[in-house]
């Protein structure tokens, strides 16, 4: 009985995590129209998650309960500003194309939830590990959505340019018959919705999520 309960709890926790990551995709997903942009946004969220998680954990007991959320928002704002500067220095064109969305990582649901629900009640090591795991999960999710949107909407896949290679792979059939809506803001909702449903279908079939 207890095994069943713990199995059920584990499934519910997995379902909550997948939902949290899906919710965290917004609003970043608006500009994730190519795989390269998706990876950049994913890495940016990973860095902000790690910084906020680590500092929230280090400040536990130092800052009183009521002020903790305010401090977390401030730290998230500083971390997002730092990431925006780093991106501007490394790749100004990519930074321009991502616009305000890098700064908006400061209020990303995933960043604030992990800091509030886990990091501020655990050790810095555990908080950092949690942030890295969630960050990698987010990176994978946003990359998959960005890849689907670009492949369907433009018929291409954009990686990062290396040496003489521009980093763009043209997909044979889709490039001539793209489903343009996938690259539009409406496509962000539609692609994410259908991918989430597909994930749930697979998870339920494998017995990894509650029905």
């Amino acid at each position, binding site marked *: 009985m207890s095994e069943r309960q713990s199995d059920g709890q584990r499934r519910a926790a997995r379902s909550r995590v997948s939902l949290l990551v899906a919710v965290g995709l917004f609003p970043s997903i608006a500009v994730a129209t190519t795989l390269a942009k998706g990876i950049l946004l994913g890495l940016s969220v990973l860095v902000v998650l790690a910084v906020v998680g680590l500092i929230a954990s280090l400040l536990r007991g130092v800052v009183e309960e009521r002020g903790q959320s305010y401090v977390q928002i401030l730290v998230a*704002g500083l971390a997002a500003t730092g990431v925006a500067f780093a991106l501007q220095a490394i790749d100004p064109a990519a930074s321009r194309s991502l616009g*305000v969305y890098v700064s908006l990582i400061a*209020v990303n649901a995933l960043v604030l939830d992990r800091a509030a629900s886990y990091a501020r009640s655990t050790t810095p090591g555990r908080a950092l590990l949690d942030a890295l795991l969630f960050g990698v999960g987010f990176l994978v999710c946003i990359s998959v959505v960005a890849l689907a949107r670009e492949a369907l909407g433009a018929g291409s896949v954009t990686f990062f340019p290396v040496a003489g290679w521009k980093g763009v792979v043209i997909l044979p059939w889709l490039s001539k018959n793209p489903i343009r809506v996938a690259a539009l803001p409406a496509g962000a*909702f539609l692609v994410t*919705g259908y991918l989430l449903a597909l994930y749930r279908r697979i998870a*339920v079939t494998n017995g990894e999520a509650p*029905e």
Partner: protein
Amino acid sequence: MSALNLLITFIFVDNIALVLLLGWWPPRARKVSSAVAVGAATTVLTTLSAVVAWVARVYVLAPLHLEFLQTVVILLIVAALPFAAHPLARRLGGPLVRDLRALVTNSAVLGAALIAFRASYSLAESLVFGLSAGGGFLLVLFLLSAVRERLESEWIPRPLRGVPIALISLGLMALAFMAFDRELLKNLLG
């Protein structure tokens, strides 16, 4: 940009929820009545944050050449808004008091402030922009909650239930809103 132009642009053409994808997910917006309350509170906050962005740009950041700190400064001021708005929220209703702090971290609020800051709007423009951005969000939230209420009585395949069907509904709504484009605006307003 004229006030009417701003109003139509940010409610219909560049809707912050459907085109800029800001503001998802508000905490309590499953029913039409709560969606209207959350949307109205968000409109107040987007208006305040756009005005705050103007004050921060004109009186603090531009004179000190500290524009690069826009995110941190705006976020700090916006995060303090719930304390100022607390008495008003108490008058409007109980659930709003709990949701107010969550609403401040809604990306629509910071997003509106950052857009107003970067577009260098005047005070009047910031005010109208904040109102129209919030109004656009309220409109979408109202439509979405009406769709969700309707969906409760319909059969939906299991994997699509909940968030996936809400996202697909939003996608279809965004497609419908694409009928409002800049050309239409140009023809309407000259």
